[in-house]
């Protein structure tokens, strides 16, 4: 009886508590779900926040406010909008290049701290007219376009770099690596044009890599699928597989890194009669040179965007890891050696160099 009474009490209590509940849960159609957030320098205030809100089969709605902090700006947008604003589906954060030069640490921290922003969202820098890029529209569902632009399953190529919010956060806190952020501007026929990769030291923009350099940057990091390299006029190859081997050594002057890159490529385009050997030779020479230049550029910026600190991590003591960015990275000596192996010419037969030297007639009859 007593137990029964207790049970009734509990039941009543829980029902009462439940019925007083229903905590302003709003249905999905009462939400705006922005997919893209642009953060730029405000005209009068510190930040200008622009939200792109996709609506199925309709034009994107764009809302904009300025404030001293990002969340205040979002709050102001929320005040004026007819629906609640939920950042849970934010997929792309576009940051104005001017802000990036001053440091994006605060913005990244905001994105990681806010529990309604997923840290798998992408970050990019707008190098160009910020407003124009944000207001630029192509297709009726830009949420998918802007996301697919980077998606490895859709529009990504090794010419573009990718950076997610969590990677940005990790890299800005990390002792062993810096980050490269993709730079965009509005496109003419497409939504965006890829401009290159911004090299950051800690959270500050210090320089940039162009598209070709970005390909090498990706190659170095092991993201190469489907990359096309132009060897010379009319000659280009497609990277099938790349193997990057690092040999690290601590010398008295500091760290020394020997990187061997082994590329397996297929020839997609070459002028008549150019042998595979020549392409191989040209390519490895050219790539070695380009790599060297890119490396020097990054090194001179004193930003370890390639993450070489990580490669040295297994051999380093904790103190050296801590000093990596300030002391050891500037002293780093790196040598890059590129070896190229041509797998085949897709539908063409491989021609040995001997046959190649032979006269045209002979080859003609043979074919």
């Amino acid at each position: 009886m007593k137990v029964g009474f207790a049970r009734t009490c509990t039941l009543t209590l829980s029902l009462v508590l439940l019925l007083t509940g229903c905590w302003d849960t709003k249905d999905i159609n009462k939400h705006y779900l922005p997919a893209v957030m642009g953060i730029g320098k405000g005209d009068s205030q510190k930040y200008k926040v622009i939200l792109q809100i996709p609506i199925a089969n309709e034009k994107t709605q764009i809302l904009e406010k300025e404030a001293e902090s990002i969340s205040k700006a979002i709050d102001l947008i929320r005040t004026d909008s007819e629906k609640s604003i939920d950042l849970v589906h934010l997929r792309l954060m576009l940051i104005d290049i001017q802000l990036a030069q001053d440091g994006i640490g605060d913005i990244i921290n905001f994105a990681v701290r806010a529990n309604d922003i997923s840290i798998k969202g992408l970050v990019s820098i707008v190098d160009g007219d910020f407003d124009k890029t944000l207001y630029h529209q192509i297709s009726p569902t830009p949420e998918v376009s802007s996301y697919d632009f980077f998606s490895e399953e859709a529009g990504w190529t090794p010419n573009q770099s990718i950076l997610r919010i969590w990677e940005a956060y990790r890299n800005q806190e990390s002792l062993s690596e810096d980050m490269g952020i993709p730079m965009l501007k509005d496109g003419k026929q497409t939504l965006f044009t890829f401009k290159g990769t911004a090299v950051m030291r800690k959270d500050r923009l210090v320089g940039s890599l162009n598209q070709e350099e970005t390909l090498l940057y990706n190659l170095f990091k092991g993201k190469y699928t489907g990359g096309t390299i132009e060897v010379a006029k009319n000659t280009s190859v497609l990277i099938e597989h790349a193997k990057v081997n690092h040999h690290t050594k601590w010398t008295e002057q500091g760290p020394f890194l020997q990187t061997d890159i082994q590329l397996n490529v297929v020839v997609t385009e070459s002028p008549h009669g150019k042998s595979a050997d020549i392409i191989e030779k040209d390519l490895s020479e050219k790539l070695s040179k380009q790599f060297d230049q890119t490396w020097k550029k990054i090194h001179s910026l004193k930003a370890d965007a390639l993450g070489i600190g990580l490669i040295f991590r297994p051999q380093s003591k904790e103190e050296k890891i801590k000093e990596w960015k300030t002391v050891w990275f500037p002293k780093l000596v790196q040598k890059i050696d590129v070896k190229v192996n041509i797998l085949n010419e897709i539908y063409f037969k491989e021609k040995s160099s001997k046959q190649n030297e032979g006269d045209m007639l002979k080859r003609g009859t043979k074919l």
Partner: protein
Amino acid sequence: MNKYLLLTIFLLLHLAAIFTFFPDRIIASTSKGHWEAITLIFMLEIVFIWFYMNGLSKFPGETIVDICLRTIGRWGACVLLLPLVVFLMGQMVLLIYYQTSQIRAVLLQSTPTAATTFLFLVLCFYGAWKGLAALIHASIGLFVLFIPFILFSMLIGIKNFNFNYIFPVWDGTFSFLHHADFYICFTILSSFLFLGMIPQKERPVRFGRLAVGLGVVYVFGMGSVYIPLLVFGQESAVLLQYPMLMASDTIDLEWVVFDWLPSFSVVSSSGLAVLMASVLLWMSSSLLHQLLVPKLNIKWMVSMLSLLVYILCLFIPNIEVMNRYLQLNAFVSLFCVIGLPMMIFILGRWRGKKVST
């Protein structure tokens, strides 16, 4: 009681504790060689389990309460077991607080914590009301329901691993020993104490099987620390309140029907925490009931304790205070986790001698 059931609940209780208290404490306690700390903890646990099981096996058919009451009297039993009750209650309060704040952070941003906690406690109350046997049976259902989620939320992170962050792997100084956070991890060891609350004849599980079970737990423990570590690196992981959660948020998978994968992590860890809190609630009510008021119906004890826990949960103002209480509780846990198995072991020896002479 079937041995597989016991092993299942043994595993689930450990997992619940691991997902609640483990990764951020271990990552905070040392900046290198985390595996040393993890291994040390589990080595100690296996030693304690051996002592505990060995001691218990000398008293067939009795629970720890029976043993203490019979050998060292009511007062002795109170001295030995009341700290355990305090520890269990503390553990329960902190567990529930941590889980509800995690639920609030990730799943229900606008629901007041009081309501979430209430639902949490209603479940625990119902479970404890039905008794340990029902909870042990339920563990198999929860296992089927939640282990896929756990494995899923742990394994999807592999794509984002950067194995260089594992270094440096060796810490010659054992610096974690000087860190309070390391000792908080000892609270997870309490997950084997429930074995003493089941009478011997229904406890067919032997030490060997428990050791194997603990091996599985060890793998999960390593995973829970190293997954966030390999994704974020020590430098950023140490700044995160919920490292496992954040690690599962970094994944962008197209083939999963749902977005926002940290939800899976929260769902699985809070599901297990419900089981753990129910077991803790049942244990502390049953201890108090047998020690102090054996005449009262145990269901009243369960009701009163759950009300008490609910109030205590609401009294924790923020996560900072929770950390302070955790450290306090860690001291009590050292007493319970080390002292109790040793004491049972000594009592067992003592009795063994008495019988043989």
